[in-house]
């Protein structure tokens, strides 16, 4: 295994700036790692090896640029984020041949910062899923054990970071899709506050919940990537004009965990949690307490309603957003359709996968005449109750500490034909998307039974990523290192 590709991103960025290592060497070491691991992992969709080598040569020729914080750093990007010149499929047959005419805001930000894009990362189709098994192309395997799923929907991003194929990846998180795969693959994942990162050029799933964020191998790397992608964009109406703090300097604002007030939502530790996740979480709690953290149990009484609330709203928004795939302006068109309605129906039915069709249909149902008030409107009302509960408990704490998933990575095929069982697995991640809050997942240990990585998440106040990352940085230092997968 090349040591270079497992260096921290922060370290490699510094060495690149100092010309201690060339961009070509770094890019080549990642491409070699991809060649070696991809036959097992299947973490990537479109690859950009030639483009990356050309870019590396250009960067080496022009020399380091101190104004570019990711100068020469190889990255991958989830395939739901538009990349001009690299196919973008959202993991769907519907967009198999889609060639974006423009870059997403976050893609431009990475490129402006000097990053080198190696490949697009595999994902559940249109980000709908928790295992990356819903990709229309192939499932991704977990680098810690290929029999297991990498989580999802940003499973390709998490697997590529954990396997050393790249130094960072961008994912999206609508109900846990960054934090849960980060937990399953043993890396760090941040879902920023809704509005912190522009969604311009990100293929929409549920627009009031979707947010782009980094997956990395350390909290510091995570802060550096967030620094690059955060900021106002007038092309996204929900993008916040608040100034972006210096997240990297901010990592030093907490001198350890002494006096940090952490609230543990008691509803997150109830039935359904596996014993190995409970053990790892208990270990984290004890370690944090020993370091001086002031830990208290808090209550979010409507947690039990969050899954239903989330799925009603997400499915409703999905059914509306995915109406655009009609086989006319872009995407798949069924052959030999004789009239327009037939063209719509056949293109959508043949181009969209089963889980996507399921969510569109249920979304249409909760929005339909006779059911709108009972489901969609009521869910939006409960959403406010859930958000207000978070706001209340976060007044008494610096952050909440919680498990990311009730279980570690499961075997491929475990929840086939039982979509509800899979939805229930998102219990600990999706409520903060409803509230719009930031969440940081970090690796906390290996499960005693499964041997798989298990993460914990910190949940912060809206737009307080600076403190969330600082607390995460302090917590990271006292958690056991899980090392890298042996592949």
């Amino acid at each position, binding site marked *: 295994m090349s040591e270079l590709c497992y260096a921290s991103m922060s370290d490699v960025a510094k060495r690149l700036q100092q010309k201690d290592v060339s961009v070509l060497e770094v890019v080549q070491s990642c491409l070699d790692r991809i060649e070696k691991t991809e036959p097992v992992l299947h973490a990537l969709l479109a690859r950009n090896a030639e483009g990356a080598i050309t870019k590396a040569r250009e960067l080496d020729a022009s020399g380091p640029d101190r104004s570019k914080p990711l100068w020469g750093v190889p990255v991958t990007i989830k395939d739901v984020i538009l990349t001009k010149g690299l196919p973008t499929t959202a993991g769907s047959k519907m967009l198999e041949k*889609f*060639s974006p*005419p423009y870059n997403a805001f976050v893609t431009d930000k990475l490129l402006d910062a000097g990053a080198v894009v190696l490949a697009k990362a595999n994902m559940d189709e249109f980000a709908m899923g928790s295992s990356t098994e819903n990709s229309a192309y192939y499932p991704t395997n977990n680098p810690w054990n290929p029999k297991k799923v990498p989580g999802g929907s940003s499973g390709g991003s998490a697997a590529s970071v954990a396997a050393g194929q790249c130094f960072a990846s961008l994912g999206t998180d609508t109900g846990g899709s960054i934090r849960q795969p980060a937990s399953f693959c043993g890396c760090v994942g941040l879902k920023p506050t*809704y509005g912190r990162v522009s969604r311009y050029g990100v293929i929409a799933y549920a627009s*009031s919940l979707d947010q782009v964020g980094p997956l990395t191998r350390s909290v510091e790397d995570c802060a550096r990537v967030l620094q690059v992608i955060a900021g106002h964009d007038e092309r996204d*109406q*929900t993008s*916040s004009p608040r100034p972006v703090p210096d997240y990297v300097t901010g990592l030093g604002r907490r001198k350890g965990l002494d006096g940090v007030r952490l609230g543990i939502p008691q509803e997150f530790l109830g039935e359904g949690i596996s014993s190995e996740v409970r053990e790892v979480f208990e270990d984290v709690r004890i370690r944090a307490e020993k370091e001086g953290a002031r830990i208290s149990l808090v209550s979010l009484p*409507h947690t039990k*309603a969050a*899954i*239903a*609330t989330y*799925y*009603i709203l997400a499915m409703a928004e999905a*059914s509306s957003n995915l109406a655009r795939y009609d*086989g*006319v*302006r*872009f*995407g*798949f*068109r069924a052959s030999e*359709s*004789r*009239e*327009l*309605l037939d*063209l*719509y*129906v056949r293109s*959508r*039915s043949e181009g*969209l996968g089963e889980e996507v*069709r*399921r969510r*569109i*249909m249920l979304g*249409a*149902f909760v929005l*339909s005449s006779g*059911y709108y008030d*009972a*489901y969609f*409107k*009521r869910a*939006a*009302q*409960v*959403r*406010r*109750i859930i*958000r207000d509960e978070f706001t209340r408990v976060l007044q008494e704490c610096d952050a909440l500490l919680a498990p990311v998933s009730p279980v570690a990575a499961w075997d491929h095929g475990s929840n086939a*034909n039982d979509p*509800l069982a899979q*939805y229930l697995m998102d219990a600990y991640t999706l409520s903060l998307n*409803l*509230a*719009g809050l930031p969440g940081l997942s970090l690796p906390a240990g290996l499960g005693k039974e499964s041997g798989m990585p298990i993460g914990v998440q910190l949940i912060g106040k*809206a737009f307080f990523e600076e403190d969330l990352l600082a607390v995460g940085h302090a917590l990271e230092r006292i958690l056991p290192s899980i090392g890298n997968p042996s592949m």
Partner: protein
Amino acid sequence: MSIEIGIEEVRHMAALSRLAVTEEEERLFAGQFAAIVEYMNVLQDIDVNGVEPLYSPVDQESVTRPDTAFHARTREELLQNAPESDEQYFTVPRIV
């Protein structure tokens, strides 16, 4: 609110969604949707009296900009992903 989800409801949802479902899928989805909607009914027991719906976590203020035309993309760029076009327009089956 109680609703029975069966084959008829699945057909209605498919029609609303502009999707076709096979007979096998109708049966599969009817069973799955019944379980999911039953689960969603947990919300019916929550007191939402007087609670304003929250549709977005940010305060949605309409942001306006001057209404001036600009060329964001060329015709070629916009047509490059079209499944069918005549180089000028998107084309669809004859509708009149």
